[in-house]
């Protein structure tokens, strides 16, 4: 993968977070088992398999992103807004990833989101992953998995 895909992930995440969520993050090593609160995921599909892109974020970071996205205060963010905004984050990261791999066979799926611990999935076998920090504090991670049919 690895380095190339990681760089693509970094570029896409930076672009989306800066343009739509008004947040700038620093990237860091993506270690397993970090305690984030929400996971959003989107798939790119073709006839041979799928690429799963998963984003995990802390609740505080998710709340801040949602507030920025909707132009409201953090205390006004409700759970529906938060989950909907995280789905849209995954949607835009997936779209940006697709644009950069530039292969017409792949089609973007519908994003989904869940609270980690309720319906979590194992992302430890990811083919690429990056972590990101907001003002020095670990805020989330992103992983890409290729899953053949």
């Amino acid at each position, binding site marked *: 993968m690895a380095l190339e895909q990681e760089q693509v992930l970094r570029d896409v995440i930076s*672009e*989306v977070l800066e*343009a*739509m969520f008004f947040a700038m993050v620093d990237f860091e090593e993506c270690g397993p088992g970090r305690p984030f609160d929400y996971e959003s995921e989107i798939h790119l599909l073709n006839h041979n398999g799928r690429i799963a892109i998963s984003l995990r974020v802390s609740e505080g970071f998710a709340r801040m992103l*949602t507030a920025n*996205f*909707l*132009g409201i205060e953090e205390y006004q963010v409700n759970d*529906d*807004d938060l989950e*909907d*905004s995280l*789905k*849209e984050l995954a*949607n*835009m990261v*997936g*779209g*940006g990833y*697709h*644009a950069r791999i*530039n292969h*017409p066979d*792949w*089609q*973007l*799926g*519908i994003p989904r989101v869940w609270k980690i611990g309720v319906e979590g999935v194992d992302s430890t076998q990811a083919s690429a992953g990056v972590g990101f920090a907001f003002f020095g504090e670990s805020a989330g991670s992103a992983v890409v998995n290729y899953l053949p049919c």
Partner: protein
Amino acid sequence: MSYNVMLVDDSRSMRKVILKTLQLSGFEIGECLEASNGQEALDILEGKWIDLILSDVHMPVMDGFGFIRALREKDIYKDTPVVFVTTEANEDRLNQLMVLGGSGYIRKPFRPEEIRALLGRIMGETDGFRAGTSVEGCDF
């Protein structure tokens, strides 16, 4: 001059963001209808006059392709401007949407200036945009 607008997107948050972006771009909104997919949009429209539709492409139930096809079959909506706001990256699919009757598209993530410029071109209403709140002055 105000416009009746319809926003079609399965993300309620994205509909809010697009509406806010339109308002901050100086686009005067009359009635704003919202739908979470193409089928719901067709059900809500039911012959109502609408000046502009902004629609997502990837949606459950009926996606942007199904929506534009069905919309253009109705005489009242055959010339209604439809702008797709989408994460779709495939140029062929985007061009297909234009062939089916789309008026333009904007890729997410977008900047307010892009929506303002495209709609100004499509709606031919640059004076209205100048009269409204400037993007630079917004707190969005």
